[in-house]
């Protein structure tokens, strides 16, 4: 026995040594820039590019913006410094944003406003104007900007867009967005503008913010892309997704239908709403030939989309209620003419009688601001298709990569999008990809966007930029 141990033990010890060195290694895939030069990356765009989420621009969203994630990956292939106009830690709440406070007994989300703290006037920290950020920056995303705004002088003034004002130098207050990006001198850029040219119309239920004319859109887009490529820069042009697929339009209608069904309200019950601009002096046309069955349900039947902002008013359907109109009056009051001095006159001008059943009677219709009907959806879809066609033409002319966000998000809406075995979808809150405003992505949604851009960059420029682990980024924060 002892002899055996004497012989066997060294063998076993040797085995232990062999084992210590048997850890397999998988080499990191080689990363390369291909034919692109990422040394100076400039991001051009709107709220999506700025990292806007939960109906606000705040530091966490900025840190997880898709340009920040792209720049982080570009650094693996020679990318340079990437500066964003971050809100400071002390002003991390930025413009303020929505948080999820909980759920009702019926499972409907309850959101609450987190007050902003980036106002530069100490008396109004939650309001614009915001504390200026005047260092050189690479992320030029401006929440709210439309393609039609990029040539507007004064857009960066206190009368203009507060987010552009925040980053516009004091000595060039009339610099347009086009001038700003023309001076940015990128070696590589991403260009994702134009969403607001249809989105503003859509989120207002087609009741405000007309869709930008195609010629304006295309001329401005071409000027911007010409300016960015003037020195031979390469880049990505992102197309505009069809907004009818986002949770802002797909969440409330199905919930409403379920609630009505549980309350045994027949689907043949009338659903009366207004169309067009809703204001005193406008026709305020009633649409009376629809029923509850026309509101899109969970299975996709019905053509009327209700906005996320309709949520507080849906429980009033069929009841005499003036809640919406009072809220609307408060909102509209500052811009009303002297001929509309009070709520009574305001209601008369809109031909609204709040003693009638809300949403069921022509005298108390559901407001157009909360409904995107078939005609409006067609307008949105036509504009999106046209804009995307023109963006594609220009991008191809300049031999740029194209991120077709429209087909991508259509795919997400139909089939979901798994990231490292995590199931994501276009559903509100549970889908992980869209933030509490129902329009803008979550950090995970932005990470997915970054990966899709990396994919088209790699294809176009023969680069091999590694993807990010989108699952490591959060969806909606649930209490």
């Amino acid at each position: 026995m002892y002899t055996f141990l004497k012989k066997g033990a060294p063998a076993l010890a040797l085995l232990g040594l062999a084992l210590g060195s048997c850890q397999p290694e998988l080499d990191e895939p080689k990363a390369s820039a291909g034919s692109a030069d990422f040394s100076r990356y400039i991001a051009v765009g709107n709220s999506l590019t700025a990292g806007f989420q939960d109906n606000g621009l705040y530091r966490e969203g900025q840190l997880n913006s898709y340009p920040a994630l792209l720049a982080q990956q570009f650094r693996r292939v020679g990318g340079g410094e990437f500066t964003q106009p971050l809100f400071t830690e002390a002003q991390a709440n930025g413009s303020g944003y929505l948080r999820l406070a909980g759920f009702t007994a019926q499972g409907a989300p309850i959101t609450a406003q987190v007050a902003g703290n980036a106002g530069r006037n100490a008396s109004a920290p939650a309001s614009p104007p915001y504390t200026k950020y005047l260092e050189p920056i690479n992320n030029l995303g401006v929440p709210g900007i439309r393609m039609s705004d990029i040539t507007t002088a004064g857009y960066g003034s206190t009368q203009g867009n507060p987010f552009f004002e925040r980053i516009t130098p004091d000595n060039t207050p009339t610099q347009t967005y086009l001038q700003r990006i023309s001076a940015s001198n990128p070696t590589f850029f991403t260009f994702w503008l134009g969403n607001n040219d249809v989105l503003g119309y859509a989120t207002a239920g087609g009741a405000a913010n007309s869709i930008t004319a195609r010629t304006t859109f295309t001329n401005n887009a071409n000027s911007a892309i010409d300016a960015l490529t003037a020195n031979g820069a390469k880049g990505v042009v992102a197309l505009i997704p069809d907004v009818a697929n986002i949770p802002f339009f797909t969440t409330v209608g199905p919930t409403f239908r379920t609630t009505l069904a549980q309350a045994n309200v027949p689907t043949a019950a009338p659903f009366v709403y207004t169309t067009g601009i809703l204001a005193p002096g406008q026709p305020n046309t009633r649409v009376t030939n629809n029923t509850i069955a026309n509101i899109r349900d969970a299975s996709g039947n019905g053509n009327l989309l209700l906005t996320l902002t309709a949520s507080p008013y849906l429980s009033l359907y069929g009841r005499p209620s003036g809640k919406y109109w009072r809220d609307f009056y408060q909102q509209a009051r500052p811009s009303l003419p002297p001929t509309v001095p009070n709520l009574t006159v305001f209601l008369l001008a809109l031909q609204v009688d709040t003693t009638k059943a809300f949403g069921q009677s022509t005298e108390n219709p559901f407001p157009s601001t909360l409904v995107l009907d078939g005609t409006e959806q067609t307008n949105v879809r036509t504009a999106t298709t046209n804009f995307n066609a023109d963006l594609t033409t220009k991008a191809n002319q300049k031999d740029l990569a194209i991120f077709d966000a429209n087909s991508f998000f259509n795919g997400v809406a139909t089939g979901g999008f798994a990231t490292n075995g995590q199931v994501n979808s276009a559903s509100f809150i549970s889908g992980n990809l869209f933030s509490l405003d129902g329009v803008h992505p979550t950090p995970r949604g932005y990470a997915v966007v970054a990966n899709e851009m990396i994919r088209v960059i790699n294809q176009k420029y023969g680069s091999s930029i590694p993807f990010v682990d989108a699952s490591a980024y959060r969806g909606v924060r649930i209490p």
Partner: protein
Amino acid sequence: MNLKHLLFAGGALLGTTAAQAGGFQLTLAGQKNNGMGGVGTGLALDQAAMFYNPGALAMVRERGVQIGVNATLARQAFRAQYGGAERQLDNTVSTPFNFYAGFGPAEGKWKAGIGVYTPFGSRLDYADNWEGRTALTSIDLKSIFVQPTVSYAVTDQLSIGAGLVVFASGSVNLQRDIQDPAQGSIELDGSSDTKLGWNAGVFFKPSDKFSLGISHRSKMDAVVTGGDVIINGVVSSLADRFAARKFDVTLPLPATTTIGFGVMPTEKLTLGFDVNYATWSRYQELVFNFDAPINGQTVSRSRREYQDALTFRLGGQYQVTDGLTVRLGGAYDQTPVKDGFVTPETPDNDRLTATAGVSYKFGERFGIDVSAQYVNIAKRSQTQEDLLNNGVANDRVAGTYKTIAVVPGFGLNYNF
């Protein structure tokens, strides 16, 4: 070097190495066979014939008891397609074992015996926060089979045998993180029901130089009924969506058929060759049934779609002195896991195994067997596109796995 040093060396092994076993089928049923690439169906080596070919038991000259234990030590690297750093398994060890006792008259035609062994098992602990954490964070599968066996020598050259295979004890512990946005983790922990199966074999040795055998082991199901569901850390506002407390699951185990040959060119040299066919295609999907909904679902289905697989084994032993026998062998093991279907609980691929062993007999009755296996599982990659094409992207992760295992084993035998 003395006993203390030996224990130290053993301790170092246990402390610094991870454990993972082949697919989840283990072929570590006999310490002598372990040193010979796992051959045995065409040979009558020792009491472990009860496992390899019960028909050969009647041809085993000795009666006796033997016990063996192995330490399955695996090292794995994983790199996600969507992610950064290389991930490595946490270090764990599993210990497949075997025990056999064979009886019967010294010169009679009958032999009987009982075997206890662990043919299926797996243990893996993935690194914290690894990319596939919602698919799996750890798995621990154990099974103990007990097999009463009889064997009868029809002639001097031909013997047959059969065993009643009792799935006596088994357990599963499976843990994974819950999908966002709920967060938290779920643990499924249960013991398997007792199940019965059989094995049988024929052994034919027409001359001193040649033998051949065929054996079959029936299919079985590992069934867990009423296992515990333990859910932790779900965000409070969604906690009532995770009400399940009990689960049921069935894991199909393959039937295996093996043909083996033995060649004895001299008295001291024995060579074996086995081909094994396992009906893994029984394993089409993994279905958990819960007693209450988990995020709206009382059934969790995951596609596996395994395919039947072959294993080829070759090994030999040489008796150097009266006491000392040395062994070498190798095996090639086809994976049952199709491309684009790899899951973290069996990050499998075709594997090449090299083995070595040594036995020493202390006199006529007592012997000791030492074996070692080196298992190299080929690198396995699958892309997100593969997963999407197969429709399985929702419960597994795209990336590349590479696994190497070392399995030292130690056995004692006593003949009477």
